[in-house]
């Protein structure tokens, strides 16, 4: 098994006719993903290398039974596109788009949560891959290997780095997920590791975090209480200069949290193995699952 996507997922691509959308959708398709449709208002009836285009998500879903939306539309249209996908019946929406205003993200999140049961991954994320089954997003599948480790990360390139370290040691992955680093991400670390814990084919979890925000601290608390599988973690930004604080308001909200030191401490005390460099992720996981 894997989480969120597998060989049965049926993907509709929003913005399939755009340069990036087309490039990655075709790569995903070539990997074996069921890319069943694309949308682009005004271009319904056309096709991109055999993938039919529809004017709306609703049409695409009723014609093709698509259940996962992959979004590449520009930032100014992203909120509407994600909501259209959710209300059109897609259960998972993967939003790659970078540069969406925070207010749009917050509003989109609030509406999704109150009015739908769709899950949103991203925005500003690399997507996810269940190796050997489906790739929905922009991750390079060449570095992955089918197996039993779940990978979740806030950063794109560090996700690749972590996956690469696992594959080098012949440790395969069940699903690799980039949740994105924007102010209001859809799925959080907790949402993803909860699914990894329940997944019978995931034996261990790699969690890659970075400085800023409190998502890692919250995940640490969750891991302590709810996760029985081994967790290997890496936090980037130990030596990074302190970022700007959002006035006094920001300082009050984040308190003493957000630094790499606090994140590492809390993850360690939650029972996770926290490594010092990404290169050590592979060995640490090898040890964790053999023990």
């Amino acid at each position, binding site marked *: 098994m894997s989480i969120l996507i597998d060989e049965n997922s049926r993907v509709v691509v929003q913005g399939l006719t755009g340069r990036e959308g087309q490039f990655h959708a075709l790569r995903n398709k070539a990997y074996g993903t069921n890319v069943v449709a694309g949308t682009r208002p005004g271009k319904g009836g056309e096709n991109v290398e055999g993938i039919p285009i529809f004017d709306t998500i609703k049409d695409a879903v009723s014609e093709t039974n698509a259940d996962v939306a992959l979004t590449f539309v520009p*930032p*100014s249209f992203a909120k509407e596109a994600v909501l259209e996908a959710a209300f059109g019946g897609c259960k998972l929406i993967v939003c790659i788009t970078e*540069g*969406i*205003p*925070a*207010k749009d993200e*917050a*509003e989109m*999140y*609030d*509406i999704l949560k*109150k009015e739908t049961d769709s899950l949103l991954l991203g925005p500003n994320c*690399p997507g996810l891959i269940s190796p050997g089954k489906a790739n929905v997003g*922009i*991750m*390079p599948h*060449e*570095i992955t290997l089918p197996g039993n480790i779940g990978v979740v*990360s*806030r*950063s*794109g*390139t*560090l996700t*690749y*780095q972590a996956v*690469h370290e696992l594959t080098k040691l012949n440790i395969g992955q069940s699903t690799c997920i980039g949740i994105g*680093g924007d*102010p*209001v991400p859809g799925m959080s670390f907790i949402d993803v590791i909860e699914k990894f814990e329940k997944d019978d084919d995931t034996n261990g979890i790699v969690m*890659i975090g*970075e*400085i800023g*925000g*409190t*998502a890692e601290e*919250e995940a640490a608390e969750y891991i302590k209480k709810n996760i029985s599988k081994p967790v290997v973690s*890496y936090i*980037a*930004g*130990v*030596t*990074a*200069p302190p970022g*700007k604080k*959002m*006035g*006094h*308001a*920001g*300082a*009050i*909200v984040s308190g003493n949290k957000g630094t790499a030191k606090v994140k590492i401490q809390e993850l360690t005390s939650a029972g996770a193995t926290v490594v*010092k*460099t*990404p*290169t050590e992720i592979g060995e640490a996981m090898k040890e964790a699952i053999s023990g």
Partner: protein
Amino acid sequence: MDLFEYQGKLLYKEFDIKHPNSKLLKNLIEIQESVELSYPIVVKAQVQVGGRGKAGGIKIANNHEELIKYSDEIMGMDIKGHIVEILLLEEASKILEEYYISFTLDRSEKKYLIMLSSKGGMDIEKVAEDNPDDLIKHHIGASEELTEDIIHEIIGKAKLNQEYTKSITDIIQNLFLMFVKGDCDLVEVNPLAITDAGVMALDSKVALDMNAKYKHSYFEDFEKEIPIPESEKNAKEKGLNFIKLDGSVGIIGNGAGLVMSTLDVVAENGGNAANFLDIGGGAKAETVSAALEVLEADKNVKSVLINIFGGITRCDLVAEGIVEATKGKDLVWPIVIRLDGTNSSEGLEILKNNPNEKIFIEESMDSAARLAVERGA
């Protein structure tokens, strides 16, 4: 992007938020004869750093003579490394009560957060720590409305003067509108004051969400008025995400997470990074040569580490950029390169075919960092 106080107040005007009458001063000649404001006038240094009051950057002038004197003193002043080039002259109001209010996004709740306190005009972080009950926090979902009822409720909880409930409610509504419709990351007013001239926002601390630049034409105007550190100007013009640091190992990488991690690994190996430079996703050859040019300008750099993990970024294009920027050149410092991911074997081939005695290739991020630290020692 953090705004100057006067820029925040231009937004107040736009959103009908009452604030003192004022004049912006860039040249002292403008007030030589007279000024169209009534005394007393507060002279405020416009700098993007806290503690200007203590540093002598705020003074109250009671007449024209004092206005000239104080303006002259404050203009050009160095406040924690920031030179004062702009003054804000404001009519001083008689303050009866001082409150604190802020609007921001609480990332862990994924909701907007309004904080209100009757203890304004002082260090609000200290209030939050010593008397947390004096700081009222209210979360609101981004698709919800901030109704009068909610505002009345928080005004009551914060124990603000009930006599002014109507004007405080109005100003809170407009500040919230400015926060949401104006795409601000932060709107913080300390103090929000009851004065003899009514309820007013006396200060402004505003940060804009630059992702929303396409929605508002004035974002760009504000941006032009904000000075960029000399060391980062060149990089900014080239569209690179660059931050100057104190060490000697120049860093180029793709993706903020990987670059941050590269700084850490350099430190693990006993070195110190000279900068943070993210060439982003999908970087082309030109981007890489531009990045190398930016590092050339930094005299502290002793060695360079290029750490690339190709996803959308293609390693062969990065390699072409490196060759283009270094071919036939007598390099000032050694460059250690690590390429992995999309098209890495093609990239390594390109580098091998264009050897340079100061370019070294390493297989892992750790060994590359180690060598870069060694070579720069």
